[in-house]
Every structure is written in structure tokens, then in C-alpha cells.
């Protein structure tokens, strides 16, 4: 993109450094373009022990993969070594973690957190998920303008990468977006039709694989339900510190009872209403008639208002 003459591209914005990426022309779009990546030291609200060796990347290209980031830093920006990359909005797991032990502190289902910086440092050990459904894409896409966090092997590498980035930005040295050839063995699966074909293949997994996943999930689910029921049962029996017993769902009443009671209540109300018929007393008839007349007037007023509104909207009635 050729910037306008009087405006220059900002070398940095807020805490971010602008890193231009040179993208080679494509077969269907014969133009060399420049993409702008904004990089800064990661500074989350709740820092973790990994925070010092992380960089925050903004506006990554939609088809970025971990190997792209690794390649850029390793080959173009002073050879800083990236350990892993966590993308914004990456899919969280869809499995279930079976309760490992009854004494576990967190009750209920616990999801594997995304591999973001905050997730790692808290020291909670992610339980292994079971019953995950198979992946259907061999290469994920990211929304346009989204972010990622690159974790370097150590703090020195992260600092080196930041320094190199600044240098590149200052010197207007555009970094080339790595092509498949550049990535060699770590090249991600290709885009375009092959990717859609692969997706088509992946979304129709073999029955055996699916069966296994479902069985695993259901087994874990059953175990979890049993565990929860057990916990609830215990809660019902044990008074807490103040001597109160917590009322919990479940117990003797099945889940279907709730709706049933409501239906019965309605029925009762209806019967009550029907006991005295609507036209038993004369005042009832009189009142009904009055109501009807009032309704007519109201309807008329409403219609008139509607016509007024029509007129306001369309102007006068004008035959074509």
C-alpha cells in the first residue's frame, strides 16, 4: 500500500512498534503488498512468571501459523527463538475432564484453558481432556486484525527480538513474509482448495474414531454426574459451620416435577375461574357490553391513528 504523500506511516504507536511485512504477489492478485504487525512487550493485568519472555503481536495476518512466527524471528529478526505462540480466540477444548479424585477442590467440569500466558502461570495443572471430537480443520484461520502472544525460550531472546524489531522499524527494513519454501519442513498445510478438501475429509471422521470419542465422553460424564450427585447428597446431610443445611436441587424430586406442578397450578386456577360462569350476573353482561363498546371505540381510534401515520409516511393518497 502506498501511503498518502503528506501522511507517513507511524514507526510506533502507543507502546507498539510497527513492523512492516513484505508479502509477495499472488497468482490472483499480482501486487506486492505490505502488512503491518504491531509488536510490544506483553503486559497483562495479572502478570505471570512467563510474562517477561512474551511478546504481544497485534494485527497478525489471517493465515499466520506458529511456524511463520518462529521463522520470522529466527531468520529475519536476529535469530530469537520462539517457544510457542498462542492465538487470540483459539478454540478451547471440547472434551470433558473426569473427576480424578473426590477431594479435588474445583467441582464440576473444568475446561482446559487456552494456552495463553495467563493460563500457564497459575500453577493449576490442566487435567487431561477425554472425549474430544476430532479436529475438522488442518489449519486454523484468525480474524482480521487479531492478536497473538509469542513466548520465547527465555527472557534474553524476547528482548533480542524486541530490539531487532525496533531496528527493523526504524530502518524501514521490511521483513519478508515467509513462503512455504522458506519454512521447509515446518511448512503448514497449504491453503485454498486442498485445505477445503482436507476439511471435508476431516469433518467426516471414521465411525470408529467417533464412537471412541463419544464413549469416552459419556463415561466421563457419567462419572462426573455420579460425583456431583454424591457431593450434593453430602451437602444435604451435613450442616455447615453455622449449623444450616444447604438446600440443593436433586434429591427426591426428579427434574420433571417442576413443570408438572406448574401445570397443576394452572389447572387449578382455570377451574376456579370456571366455577362462576361469565354471564351469570346481570352486571357481568352489562360490563361485558360496555367493554365491547369501549373496544370498538379504541379500535377505531387506533385505526385512525394508523391512517394518520400512513398519511404522514406516504403523504397524500395518490393513485398511481
Amino acid at each position: 500500500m502506498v501511503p498518502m504523500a503528506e501522511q507517513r506511516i507511524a514507526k510506533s504507536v502507543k507502546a507498539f512498534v510497527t513492523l512492516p511485512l513484505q508479502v509477495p504477489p499472488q497468482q490472483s492478485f499480482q501486487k506486492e503488498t505490505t502488512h503491518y504487525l504491531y509488536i510490544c512487550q506483553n503486559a497483562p493485568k495479572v502478570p505471570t512468571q512467563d510474562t517477561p519472555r512474551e511478546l504481544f503481536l497485534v494485527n497478525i495476518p489471517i493465515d499466520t501459523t506458529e511456524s511463520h512466527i518462529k521463522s520470522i524471528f529466527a531468520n529475519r529478526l536476529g535469530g530469537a527463538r520462539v517457544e510457542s505462540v498462542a492465538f487470540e480466540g483459539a478454540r478451547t477444548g471440547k472434551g470433558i475432564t473426569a473427576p480424578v479424585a473426590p477431594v479435588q477442590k474445583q467441582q464440576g467440569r473444568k475446561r482446559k484453558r487456552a494456552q495463553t500466558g495467563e493460563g500457564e502461570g497459575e500453577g493449576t495443572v490442566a487435567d487431561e481432556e477425554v472425549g474430544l471430537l476430532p479436529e475438522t480443520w488442518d489449519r486454523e484461520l484468525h480474524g482480521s486484525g487479531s492478536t497473538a502472544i509469542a513466548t520465547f525460550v527465555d527472557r534474553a531472546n524476547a528482548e533480542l527480538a524486541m530490539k531487532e524489531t525496533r531496528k527493523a522499524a526504524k530502518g524501514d527494513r521490511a521483513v519478508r513474509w515467509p513462503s512455504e519454501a522458506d519454512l521447509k519442513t515446518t511448512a503448514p498445510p497449504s491453503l485454498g482448495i486442498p485445505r477445503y478438501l482436507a476439511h471435508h475429509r476431516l469433518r467426516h471422521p471414521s465411525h470408529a474414531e467417533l464412537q471412541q470419542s463419544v464413549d469416552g465422553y459419556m463415561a466421563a460424564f457419567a462419572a462426573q454426574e455420579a460425583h456431583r450427585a454424591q457431593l450434593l447428597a453430602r451437602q444435604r446431610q451435613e450442616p455447615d459451620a453455622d449449623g444450616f443445611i444447604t438446600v440443593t436441587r436433586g434429591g427426591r424430586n426428579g427434574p420433571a416435577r417442576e413443570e408438572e406442578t406448574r401445570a397443576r397450578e394452572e389447572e387449578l386456577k382455570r377451574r376456579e375461574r370456571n366455577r362462576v360462569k361469565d354471564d351469570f350476573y346481570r352486571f357481568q353482561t352489562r360490563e361485558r357490553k360496555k367493554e365491547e363498546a369501549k373496544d370498538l371505540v379504541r379500535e377505531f381510534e387506533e385505526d385512525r391513528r394508523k391512517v394518520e401515520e400512513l398519511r404522514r409516511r406516504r403523504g397524500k393518497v395518490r393513485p398511481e
Partner: protein
Amino acid sequence: MAPPASKRRKTTHLDSGQESDGASFASFGGSDDAADEVETDGEEQELVSDDGMDSGLGNLSEEQSEDGDDGEEDAVPDNDKSGLEAQHSKQMQQKKADRPHSRSNASTIDAGSSAYTAGTFKSNIFKLQVDELLEQIRPRQGQREKQAEETLHVLKKCIEQLPARGALPVDQAERKLLSSKIAIPFPDPRPPRDARYKLEYAKPPSINVVGSHVLKTSSRKRDALEVDMLVQMPSQILQEKDFMNYRYFYKRAYYLACLAEGLKTSKVTSQYRVQYELLHGDQLKPVISVSPKSDEQNKDAKPARRWKIFIVPAVAPDAFPADKLLPGRNCVRSQSEDAQDPTPFYNASLRADMLLAPYLKLLHGAATSCAAYRDACLLGSMWLRQRDLDSSITKGGFGNFEWGALIALMLQGGGAGGKPILSPGYSSYQLLKAALQMLATRDLSKHALVIGDDSKSAALTLVSHPAIWDATRSHNVLYKVSAWSWQILRQEAVSTLSMLGDQLFDGFNTAFITNSSGPLYRYDHIAEIVLPAKANKGDLLKMLYDVLRRGLGDRVRLVNLIWSPTPAWSLGSSVPSSQATSSVKVGMVVNPDTVNRTVDLGPPAQEKAEAASFRKFWGELAELRRFKDGSILESIVWDTRGGASILQQIVQALLLRHFGEVSANTLKFAGDEYVNMLRHRDNKEPFQALQEAYKQLESDIRSLDDLPLTIRQIMPADAQLRNASLTPPALPKQSPEPANITLQFEGSARWPDDLVAIQRTKIAFLLKIGESLSDANDSITSRIGLENEQADTLNQAFLDVIYDSGVAFRLRIHHDREQTLLERQLKDKSVDPKSKELAAVGLAMFKRDYVRTPAHTQAVARLCNKYPALSGAMRLTKKWFASHLLANHFAEEVVELMTLRTFTQPWPYQTPSSATVGFLRTLRWLSKWDWRSDPLIVDLSGSCELKQQDARGIQTRFEAWRKLDPAMNRVCLFVASNVDPEGSTYTDGKPAKVVAGRATALAKAACDEAESKGFDLEPTALFSSPLEDFDIVLHLNPQTVGGAQGRKQKPVFKNLELATLDDTSTIGFEPAASFVEELERTYGHAVLFFHGSKERSVVTGLWSPQTAPRSWKVNLAYSSIAMEGKGGEDVQAVANKQAMLSEMARLGGELVKTIQVNR
């Protein structure tokens, strides 16, 4: 005639008509004053318009002394002269000043009372709108009226000063007039040169203004004000036998020519435009038309300036005996034939000239006795105008006059025992409805409506012609209505009546506001036929109609002949020959059930006479065939393989047989082009094949006995299963698109009570069903596919069931506990907003996929059986949306409902009988749909299951949406039906306002095109829109767009193991669709994408206004460039469009051929 005074007083407060009369009376008086100053002629008041109609009529009755009581009170202003006149007009002006007050007062009384007078109007809203319309169209004294009246004075003065001319033989008379460059407009055939009678001119005994202008029953919204000026020919110039052999018409033509010459010598022709014209297209009756000169600066004059005065020569009502002119009599003798055919048209045309004044009196009587009469006439004139019906023969022969006469006559008699059908106390709406009822329910061409003593009406039965026989005046009011016009008129009346009967639908707009005359919307097929040049055009048309009607039989419901009227011509030339315009358009409305029948059966061979007639009619096409049931019949078998439709073949054959080669070869036939653009045309066979396969699948699944739960129901939920998909299903050599179906098990307590677990359980069920199906039936391949990867509470999997025959189904399990769980989640306050949002999405999806769509599918499939043209119309409409790249914005169901509206609420037309008109009318409606303030509500039951209360509920919901979301960011189109009262099921979020606006604009453009081109409309023109409208255009590789082409690509991707995949594995593989979906997900905030599924292999986009430069921030949802701000401003973020395009190119790979950047 005139009612007792008390009656009159009673009616005045009901209607403001009386006041307006007074008011315009006053203004008439005003103009009169002005005229009086110029003219000192004492006989001025003979001109009716001077004193308004009352005095004019008084005048009439004075002369004829037939009607005493009317004359008595009305004659007053005539007899006293200018002194009193001035006083009178002052009084009137006083009244005029009072008028606004009294008017508004009257209308409030009127409106207030209507709340309680239910029944006299359809509904309050209808009544209020009618009142407003009447206010708009009631005639008033304006600029053009003033001008026209001034001219009337001039003309009258001029005519009165003309000297009498002595009797002359025909050719002398003609020569004499020719010397002053005036031609005598003799009707065809012209009089013989050696005729023994002589032509003569004498001063007219009276000159009157007649017609709707005087009665104030013509709407002021017409293009031109038309005033009929009656010049009565004196009786002494006529002879007793003049009604025979055109003699009256020759004399009339001469009289007219003399008037023309008089106008010319008195220089009137230099001030105005004076021409000959045919009165109502009746070849026998030329008139002089006087209109303002259209000089250069006046070319685009306002309609207010346009007016036209017709000078109509006529005779006294007693000029000829009425008995001689009965419809059964022959009045045109020819020497050769002995048997004299009756000449009803000729007779009635002559009779009409005698009856101009009596009818004026009749109508005026009705107007005074019935308060609502004028309003009914105004409404009627509006109704007729919107249907392009007119008194002129080319436009049906039923116009304002006939309408007024019909109501006036029905006020006098026609009921059982000669009692009036209507009572003068009826409201204008009731009068209108009664008149329509008369036209709709009674076939007047078989049983004439006779009003008055019916001793003479026996003559009517001789000619099968629509008739309203006015026995008092011995005249058929419908004499100009031809057999085909009668059909049209009747049909219009029928559809208007059923429309007014519909409680859900406010018929006001379609009855009076929308113009429904466009032939493209009215007729399924239009043929343009050049008829051989022949003397009598009327006979030729009759013959054409009869031939087509007989030949097409029950294939068509309606045949109408349309031809252009003879234009006005100059005074110096004779009547333009009608042969110049011998091209006739034939509009046909087909019967969709029988139009494509391949065999026409004739009479059996034994019935000699009938068989001979059949052979004579069809010529060589008729064949004697023996049929399976043993009968031997004359028959015709039509060819179905050729390109031309059967209808076209028949018309062609009939023309060749009866009108010669020229007509047959020049035939232009339109109406099939649209359907031909569809794959497999509007054939239903592929859909039926799929339906059968579906039934097979249902029985296959139900016969599985090893399922853990019993099946409650299996429902279709796909456009292919309701005959509505653009591409017909299961074409050979094309991989099928799986048709969605849902399966519901009987309730069980063993389902888990957790959304995620339910989804997994569903997978387990699907695995089981797939396995069992494949085991039970060798021809079935089944496969599980995953979906909704991003959220595990949504449906996770479906089962594709593929038969070896090439049909595929996609099965999902419907479990109603999901809805309860989702609703509970929505209500739960402890749930985080993100999950709540997801639950809302899930609930909407659940309702759409498992509740609404199956119900919709069933309803539409049923309607497809009811309306044969529906399937084609829906597919054409979808094609239109796809061609304009709107397919990814409008859900299929929305498009279907739009088309269905055309079928279930067809007004002002009948239910479309071909896909083409169904499509075109849908487009027209779409171009007019104000979706901002009107919901679309369709009753899919076909039997009025949608009650008024439900409709009101839907309306309330619509209003709630508009209040909640006035900017229409979420729900823009509100589309509800009786199976989907929610209205936002298919339109939540999509289409956006800008897209809906574009659809409306495109439809408008298409309709404009259709209206301007008319018959010559190029069908493909409706289906193309320029790609330049978009900012970016991604041209896709055409081979990759359809799923079918995946197979052709196989060798290219051998390395990807595709070769090992068999055919069934590519089912459902649509890379282009996936690509567009991903583009929308990735760039949804920056670009609005348009895609037409398989119809056009392009994806286009518009940059969203959100991508305009703004201050930089981290969470921009698009790729950006950081620009230094000017003068120390914040750093600006500019959309990096080039980089995004490059990304799109990378993402698409070989899928994208080129990217075109327009802006």
C-alpha cells in the same frame, strides 16, 4: 325520479357531497359572472355548465316537459336574469366561505359515527382511507376547468352563429367542404356517390354539456379533463328511414364536418387544437375534439392544464322508433343475402346517440336520490382506471358512464319482481360492492340483467352478448363490451370481491391505488399477431377470438385481445384506415393444470357432423386414433420435444389454418423465456423422485428394529423437499446435495440433562442409525459429519444417508429437551453474558432447524400441489436473488415466503397460473414493499387458518421489534407466517438494511425495465447487474464453484488422496461456499460480501464504512496501517485494503482466478 323532500334532507347530513355541490355551484356561478360580462347573449344558460348541473337539467326538463317536479325547483335560477343571479352568486360565495368549517365538521360526524356503523364499510381503516381518497379525487373548480368552460362558451357561441346549409347530394357536399379543406369523416363503408338522399345542416335546437363532468362523477386525478358537448341535430334534416344502412351516420358525419368548417372559419382552430377523433373508438361515430394547443413552452404542461372537449352530434330521443333498433333487428341490408343477420352493435350505437340526454337525466336522478351515488361513481372510476378499463372499445367498453349507469339502473330495478336491487340509503362502499357483485356473480353474456319491463328483452337472447338491458330506454348499456372484454371485466370484479372479503388484508391499496394494468403482470403469455388486411376489423377480431378460444379450449382461462386505438386525425383528412394497425396482441391466462396436456381429444368418429367440424377446424392436424379404453376419437397429439411450448404450437397452427401463412410466420410469442432459463424448466419430476426416495428412507428408518428408542416423527426440512430449490435435486451426472431431514424420538427420561452431553448422545444415536441402515440395506452408504465446531452446546453432527440411486439425505436429531435447557440458561441470572449469548443463538437455531423449517417445508410442499405454478415461481425468484449476488443474505425461506405471498394474496390479480407472472408479480411487490413499516405476513395454510387475532399478534410483535431496534440493525425484514409467528426466524441479522435496500432498488429497476419495455422485455436483462457496483470482485474458478465439479478436479489433486475417495465422499463438498463463509467470518466487520451460490462464480464485496480512518487501537477487527496524525493528533488507523486482498488471494488459492478492485 326525485325523492320526497324529507328524504333529501335526511341524506344531506350524512354526506358532505351536498356541501361540495353548493360550493362548486358557487364557483360555477363565479365563472358565469365573468362570462356574462363578455357575452350579452341572453340564451347563455342553455349551456348546462353555466349554472351547474341542476339548472342544466332543469333546462332539459323544461324542453321535454317530462319531469315536472325536477324542473320546478331547478328552473328558478334560469328564469331570473342577471340581477337575481348576482345576488344568488353572492349567497353562494357566502356559503363557500363557510365551507371549510362545515366540511370538517361533517367529516368528524361521519367518522365518529362509522365506529358504530359496522358493516357499511369493510373496516374503519378502509373507510378512513376511502374518505381520504375521495377528498383527493373529487372534482373541483380549478384552472383547467375554468379554461375548459371558457372554451365551451366560445364554441357554443360559434356554433350558434353558423348558418344553415341547403340539402346537397353526397359528392357535392363533400366537394364543397373540401374546398375549405374539411373532410367529411364518413364511416366505413362510405356512402355511394349516387345516393339519393341529401345531406343538410341546420341550426342545432340545443347545445348541452353532458357526461361525467356535469355530474361531477369523474375523478380529478385523470390525465385530462374530458367534457362532452352535445350538439343536437335538428329532426328536420333526418328522414324516417335514416336509421337504415348507415344513413344516419353519414348525415351525422356531414353535420360534424359542417361544425368543423364553422369552427375553422371563426378562427377557433387557430386558438385551439381541433381534430377529429372516434368517440370511444367506435368507428361509426367520429367527433370533434378541442384541446389546448400544445405550444413549445407548454410541452410538459402540468396535467392541470390538460383538458379536452368533445363535440358530439346527437339526435332527439324520439328521432327513430326504438323498436326498430332492438338488438335482434337487422338495420344494414345487403342485396345478396336473404337471411339478414341482426346488427346489435350498429343498432345500439345509433340508439346511444339518441339516449345521451335521457341517460344524463337518469344519472342525475340517481345522484340526487342517493347520497352516496357520486362517491360510488368516483370510487368506480378509480377502480376502472387502475385496471385500464374505459368506455373505449379498445379498453373494454366499460367505463365511467357504464359504471354510473349500472348503479343508477340497479337503484331503479332489476331485483326480484322488478324491485330495485339497491336502496338509496346504501353507503358508497356498499354500492361499489354491489356493482362488483353484479359483474362477478352473474354471467351477463348468458343471462342479461333486465331492468324495467322485460317484454322486449326476448330479443336479447338471440345474440349472446353481455347485456344490461335497460327496458325503459330500450338500450343495452354493455353494447360496446366484447366477449373478451367481458371476461376480463368479470375476472377483475371477482378478484376485487374476494380481496374485499379477506379480513386479514387491507384491500384499499390494491383496489384503488395500485395500477394493475401492466400486461406482463396480467397475462401468462402474450402473442403478437399480424392479421391479414381485411375490411371489417371488428369481425376479424371476433373470428380470432373464437378460433383461439375453441382451439385452446380449457388450456386457457382467459384470452384478451389488445390493439391500439385509432389516433385522432386532422380535420382535412379522412378516417385513417384501420388496416395500418392490424397487429393485435393476444394476452392469455393459462390453466396451469391443463396447459401442457399433450393430447387433445375430439369427438368420436361415429358422430359424423361433429367429427367433420373438428377436422375442418384443425385441418391436417386432426388424426383418428384408437385409445386404450377402446374408443376411437378424433384427436391431436402435440410434440413435446421441440423447443416451443405446446401453447405456442397450437397458436401457430391455428393461425396457419385460419389466417394464412403471413400471420403464422410473423407470430411473436412471449412467456416461456423465463422458465426456460431454469434447469429442467419447471418440471416437477426430479422433485417427485426425491419425494419418493424420502418416503423410502422414512420406511427404511422406521423398519429398523434395533433402535433403543421408538421414533415419534421424521420431518423434511429442506428446499429440495418442498419443490423450491433452484437446482433440481439428483440430476444425473451431478453429485447430489443432501436434503435435510429431522428425526424425533419418543420422549425418554434417560437422556442426560446437559446440553453438551445431549449433543454427544445424539452422535451415539446417529452412529447407531447409520450402522443399522447400512446393515439392513446394501444400497445405502452412511457417514457422519461434524458441524458447529466452535460451540459444543449446538448440534454437533449429522448423518448423511446416501442411496446408490444418487439421492442423499442429511439427518439430524430433534430433541425437545434442548429448548427447555436453553431457555433455562437464558433466564438464569448467574450465567455469564457470553454463554447467554450462545444460548440465545442456540435457541434461535433450534427453533429454526427443528420447529419452523419442518413446518414451513410441509406447508410449502402442500401449497406446491395446490398451485402448480408455485414451484417454478419460487425457483425463478431464487434465481433472481442469486443472480444479483444476494443469495447469501436472503434465506431461502424468506424468498419462498415472498413468492408465496403472490399466490396466497394475489390481489389485485388472480392466483398466478404460470411461473413467469408469479415471479414478475413478486418482483413488483418487492419493489413496493416498505419493509421499514410493514411486516410480511403469509398464511401458508391455504384455508385461512391464520386468524385475525394471530395476525394482530404478529403485527404487535413487529411493532415491538421496531421499537426495540429502530435502527434495524438486527431485524430489518420481518417475515412471518402462520407456522412462524415470530417473524425474525430467518431474518435475524441478515439481510442488513443496506442489502435489503439494494434488493428493493434492484427490484424497482427491474420493474421499471419491464414497464418501459413491455412486450419487448429481454428476460435476461432482469437477471444481470453490473459488477462495477461493488468495491471488490473476486472472480472464482468456475470449475470449483459447484460441488459437481469436484470430481472433474480429481486428477489435479491426486497427491491429496482424493483418488482413493469414492464418489459418495465428495457429496456436500462445496469449496466456494466454505470460502465465502470463512471470508465472512474473518472480514465480517470490514467487508460486506455478496455471493450468488452457483448462479455466478464471483464473490463481491463492499468496504464497510467502519473501515474509514480512525484513531488507532488494539482491537480493530481488520488489518490496518498506522499513520501519523496531522499536527500532533493521535495515530490514525487506515484500513490496509491491499494487504487484506492479498490475504484473500492466499486463502482462496486456486479457487480465486483474479481479484478486481473497483474502488
